[in-house]
């Protein structure tokens, strides 16, 4: 009986044109939380899919409690007691939350499915994850946060020896993250081993017992968490040191607001949102999941019909009925759901990059491929998109690299108002800095940047002003130099508290 519940030894995994893993190691003790970190495209998800039998390794062995195992499909790994929360949401949009949670693990009574029991259990487990919702509802009607929790509920429900979580917090707000960490500690207490993937270092430091770092598909190093610090961790994963995680730079605040929103109304979601955004500044949007930040931006961008309210750009009232008009008015909107709303997964990087502004790459009606490739290569270099070529199908990039493609797309849209909804979701620390630098250069160029983020450090690190939302209303607006510009007060506002003065 080995000391490890699961052990992976010198695994190799090849994809057409890509070596995703070369002699990879990983081992997890029962009742420990192992952090796994690495740059985008380092091979974390691949490593995980090898452990769960989604991919079969070209070389290498997997041991579960000392016995050598070969997993032909996820069933076999589940049977061996390995559960997994995959990086990408895998929701059955049309089926109820219950169906989603019990997919292929249905509870039966007398040969037939026992829905009463399943609904009950589903409600319980979702509640234990802090989501009080009706499990009969189709999962597709909920936002990403809830859907992420459904995925976690799936894994928690089966009694596993080891649970793997691939970036579970990337689409969660503060509150959900807290809930999740609590859940993890409970599982750990029950002697279950947990692999926890995240690009948020503070989460790893807070939660994990040991942290494994991988780079370019290779195992780099595993240490106890106390033996790591920010710099050593970053150096290990990006192979160089990063002096500053939030390289904030300041632009020239425009005299007049570039974007002004008055009393924005949308049935059931937005109840009179007002705010102003200035050029040369980053306006942060803080709030809990479901606060209405995304909906606000969708409304401004013309993605959803609004029921009332005014929008001014450069002091001129504009009526924006659809995204095309928004873009023509110089607005760019990087959505929070890259898979569903950001990318055409089946198309190449080349095509996705020009999606938002084909005009710019045209001579007359014809596309200028030369121009497209040049600017494409530039983005791949400046954003460090890890890909074999510009003609790679976006669907096959790693999660973080997909996110970078979306950013590239909007940089091409030559807008002067940039709305970033969770722009660093699923991006590694190195790449985050690159994204921040992009924002910096935008504000330096006098552009107006709006950044929705559920990561408090990011909000505090990068914003010039912060709008705090709750329940479809603006609770507070905090300037960088105000005394309220700190985690406590902003969270207080997000929870519905009021800030004096």
């Amino acid at each position, binding site marked *: 009986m080995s000391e490890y519940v699961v052990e992976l030894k010198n695994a190799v995994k090849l994809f057409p044109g890509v070596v995703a893993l070369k002699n990879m190691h990983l081992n997890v003790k029962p009742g420990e939380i192992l952090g796994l970190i690495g740059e985008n495209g380092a091979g974390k998800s691949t490593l995980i899919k090898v452990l*769960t039998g*989604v991919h079969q390794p070209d070389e290498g062995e997997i041991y579960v409690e000392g016995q050598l195992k070969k997993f032909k*499909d*996820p*069933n076999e790994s*589940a049977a061996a007691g390995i559960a*997994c929360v*995959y990086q990408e949401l*895998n*929701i*059955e*949009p*049309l*089926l109820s939350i219950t*169906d989603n949670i019990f*997919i*292929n*693990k*249905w509870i*039966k009574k007398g*040969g*037939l*499915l026992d*829905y009463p029991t399943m609904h009950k259990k589903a409600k319980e487990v979702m509640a234990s994850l802090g989501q009080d919702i009706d499990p009969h509802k*189709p999962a*597709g*009607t909920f936002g990403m946060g809830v859907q992420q929790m459904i995925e976690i509920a*799936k894994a928690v429900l089966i009694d596993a020896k080891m649970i793997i979580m691939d970036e579970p917090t990337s689409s969660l707000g503060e509150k959900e993250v807290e809930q999740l960490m609590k859940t993890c500690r409970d599982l750990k207490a029950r002697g279950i081993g947990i692999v926890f993937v995240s690009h948020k270092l503070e989460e790893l430091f807070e939660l994990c017992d040991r942290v494994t770092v991988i780079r370019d598909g290779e195992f780099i190093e595993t240490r106890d968490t106390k033996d790591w610090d920010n710099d050593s961790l970053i150096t290990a994963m990006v192979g160089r040191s990063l002096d500053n995680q939030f390289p904030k730079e300041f632009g020239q605040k425009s005299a007049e607001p570039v974007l002004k929103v008055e009393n924005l*109304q949308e*049935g*059931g*979601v937005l*109840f009179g949102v007002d705010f102003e955004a200035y050029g040369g500044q980053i306006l942060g949007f803080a709030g809990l999941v479901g606060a209405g930040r995304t909906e606000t931006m969708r409304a401004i961008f013309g993605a959803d019909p609004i*029921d009332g309210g005014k929008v001014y750009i450069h002091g001129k009232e504009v009526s924006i009925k659809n995204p095309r008009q928004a873009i023509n008015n110089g607005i760019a909107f990087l959505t929070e759901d890259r898979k569903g709303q950001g990318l055409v997964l089946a198309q190449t990087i080349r095509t996705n990059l020009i999606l938002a502004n084909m005009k710019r790459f045209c001579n007359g009606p014809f596309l200028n491929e030369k121009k497209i490739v040049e600017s494409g290569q530039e983005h791949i270099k400046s954003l460090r998109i890890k890909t074999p070529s510009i003609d790679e199908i976006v669907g096959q990039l790693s999660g973080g690299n997909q996110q970078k493609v979306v950013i590239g797309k909007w940089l091409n849209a030559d807008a002067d108002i940039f709305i970033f909804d969770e722009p660093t979701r699923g991006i590694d620390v190195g790449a985050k800095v690159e994204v921040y630098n992009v924002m910096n250069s935008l504000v330096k160029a006098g552009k107006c940047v709006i950044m929705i983020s559920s990561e408090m450090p990011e909000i505090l690190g990068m914003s010039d002003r912060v709008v705090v939302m709750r329940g*479809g209303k603006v609770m507070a607006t905090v300037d960088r130099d105000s005394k309220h510009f700190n985690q406590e007060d902003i969270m207080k506002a997000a929870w519905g508290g009021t800030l004096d003065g």
Partner: protein
Amino acid sequence: MAKTMTKKKGGNGVSLGTLAALVVLCVILAIASPNFLNYNNIMSIFKQCTFNAFVSVGMLLCLITAGIELSVGANAIFCSCLMGMLLQKGITDNGVVMVIVALVAGTAIGLINGLLLTRLHLPHPFVSTLGMKNVLWGAALLVTSSQIVSGFPETTAWFGGSDVGGFPIAFIFVIILYIVMHIFLTKTTLGRSIYCVGGNPEAARLSGINSANVLTFCYTFSGLMAAIAGVYTTGRSGICNGAAAIQPYDTDAIAACIIGGASFMGGKGTMAGTMVGVLIIGVLRNGFTLLSFDTALQNLVLGLVIILAVLMDVTRERMEAKARRMAAANSAK
């Protein structure tokens, strides 16, 4: 997608809009033709619906998996011709044997459709089943050497021909079948897996559902349904004719399922809805004959109704969605 997700269903999963369409249709016909509501006529509507009712079940399963089954009609006719061949070539005149042969053959063909899709990794069943449709059409003609066969024994005719108090046996069977399948789709593991595979194949795969087997099952089952339909039509018309294989049975079935709320994107569709779809088409065709419409008018009206039925449903949904948003807005005030 969002709008389809919020789709409100009646208890058993039939969309009210389509049900309304059926009712409206019946009212119109009842007014237009005195014979419409007469008992015998309603019975013949049931008889006329039966064939489509059978093939639609198989079609529905395939549609739920985001697939399609274009060979259902040809398969049915082929099975019917197979029975004819046994008789024609004097191999047997035992009705039971004929029926068994037909059922086995139809199921086997369904299995082949399934394997083509899952084992040979054809991109979409449209192609394989379209090919199969042509193959079966040819085969149906070959086995009967392009002749019409008649004079089937009573035992064969029983399923398609007999009734209790005017109520066709076969339709009683249909009703039972639909109830059983409703339970199957809503209350069994395999049934749910079918929706999962159709709604999000990747999710199904990652949760360890063996998509390949689920798909193969659906197409095999569809084959069985087609075979039963073949046996039925043989008994009903008393003859078999390979040339009938080109009839657009498949489009009738697809129309029934779609009108009943199924979607090409998969993951949607119910037995109750499909039954309504089948009835809408059956009632229409019956109306045509009662009012002796000519082909031109028949197609014109059929086409319009198909569009309208779905239109009604969609509009209803969107109005509902709007109403909900407004309600939410006010409640928030």
